[in-house]
């Protein structure tokens, strides 16, 4: 288990990445559009996808920081809660940008350049994400730096616009308790997403490992968005479980392992989407050894995700 104090440090370390990383990725994306550089554009999309992945532990470790700050003199729980809500709002847009960036990468392999519609979506979501992330970071800074505390009017404006109450952990927890069907529905969708995602992961990676060798990789490439939608379904439902009961998860070793497996598998997905030579394999072609290692690791990592997900109530105490 990762000690709570380390998770607080991790939050303090990671919390700059979403804002700064997104500004860098977005800036490079704009530069690529001006210079009409396909390679630069792909690089910018990869950065945005990676930052979207990294934003998940950034948000989650925030609850460890919140726990550590309970009862500390000079810390307003109201500002902490405002930071949580604005961070969740920013995270939603960040993940949407990550999905759009992944689609851009996926399209760019199929065509010389990613579609103009995708470019417009990435631009819009990216700009909104930078604004929301900056706002969340600003409120986060005010938790321990009262000297930069905004005026009450400014805080109220932030609440209404960028941090609606429906995104508050307490609201989500109460909603789940008062609507028993909510948890059942989320779990069912989580299992459906698991099957879809695992099916795509298994079939695509088994081809890379030498199964179904008569099939070109192009066909499996077309299946990838279905796996991504499975992942999106599970990210949304999984985050709702987490937010509803965050303090059951943050110190749970099974949860730490599960998140590690997801992040490593996400890095694998980025590598496999990025590298053209993987997808140019035709019928009968064998993948390079490094790709086979990555393919095997993808399968093992997703089995790990299922294992640690199932062990949440048994290794730790989350239900």
């Amino acid at each position, binding site marked *: 288990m990762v000690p709570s104090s380390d998770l607080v440090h991790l939050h303090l370390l990671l919390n700059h990445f979403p804002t700064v990383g997104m500004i860098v990725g977005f800036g490079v994306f704009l530069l690529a559009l001006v210079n009409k550089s396909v390679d630069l554009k792909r690089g910018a999309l990869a950065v945005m996808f990676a930052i979207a992945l990294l934003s998940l532990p950034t948000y989650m470790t925030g609850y460890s920081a919140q726990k550590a700050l309970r009862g500390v003199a000079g810390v307003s729980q109201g500002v902490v809660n405002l930071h949580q809500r604005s961070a969740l709002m920013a995270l939603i847009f960040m993940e949407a940008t990550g999905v759009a960036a992944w689609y851009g990468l996926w399209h760019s392999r199929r065509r010389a350049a990613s579609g103009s519609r995708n470019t417009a979506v990435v631009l819009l979501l990216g700009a909104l994400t930078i604004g929301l992330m900056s706002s969340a970071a600003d409120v986060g800074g005010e938790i321990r730096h009262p000297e930069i505390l905004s005026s009450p009017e400014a805080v109220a404006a932030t609440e209404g616009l960028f941090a609606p109450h429906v995104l508050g952990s307490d609201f989500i927890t109460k909603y789940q308790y008062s609507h028993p069907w909510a948890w*059942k529905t989320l*779990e*069912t969708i989580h*299992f*459906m997403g*698991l*099957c*879809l*995602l*695992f*099916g*795509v992961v*298994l*079939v695509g990676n088994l081809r890379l490992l030498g*199964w*179904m060798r*008569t*099939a*070109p990789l*192009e*066909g*499996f*490439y*077309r*299946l990838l968005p*279905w796996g991504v939608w499975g992942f999106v379904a599970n990210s949304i439902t999984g985050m709702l479980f987490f937010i509803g009961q965050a303090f059951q998860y943050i110190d749970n070793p099974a949860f730490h392992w599960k998140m590690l497996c997801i992040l490593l598998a996400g890095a694998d997905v980025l590598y496999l989407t990025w590298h053209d030579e993987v997808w140019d394999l035709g019928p009968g072609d064998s993948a390079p050894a490094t790709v086979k290692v990555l393919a095997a690791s993808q399968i093992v990592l997703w*089995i790990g995700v*299922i*294992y640690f*997900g*199932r*062990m949440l*109530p*048994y*290794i730790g105490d989350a239900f």
Partner: protein
Amino acid sequence: MPVLEWIQNLPLSTSIAESDSIWWGYAWWLFVHALGMGLTAGVGFIVCLRLLGVGRQIPLSSLGVLFRLLWVGFYLNLLSGTLLFMTDATGIARVWELYAKLGCLGLALVLMTRLRRFVESGRGDEMIPPTITKMAYACIVLWLAVITSGRLIAYAVEANGAKL
């Protein structure tokens, strides 16, 4: 029912139900069941999606191996599902969700067998008849129903237990 009580009180059933081991106890078999579900329904989804036109570059004939994987998942779940049932036979046998799940599963497997026969017949994409397309859609719905009813079994057993 005496036979259900007898099953539940077998040394194998009680040893799994009472084991705290995360490797071979109740939790382990829950994991195996989730993995088997991912294999069976996951591969089922992919085969159906391919028959519906997603990833047309994959020759239908190469899908044969996936049906073997599907059956591996099924046998994993037959084993883990039976063991999980044995740990609380009297509780689980009482909920209708179990029978809904088994009914949908049986139907899904019958349709998957028909799809396998078509895939192994050597016909190409241009020869996919509308009945096969309809079966692929039906299979997707049935797998979703199997997952849903399977998930609801746990809640129904818990609710019944609370009522007693």
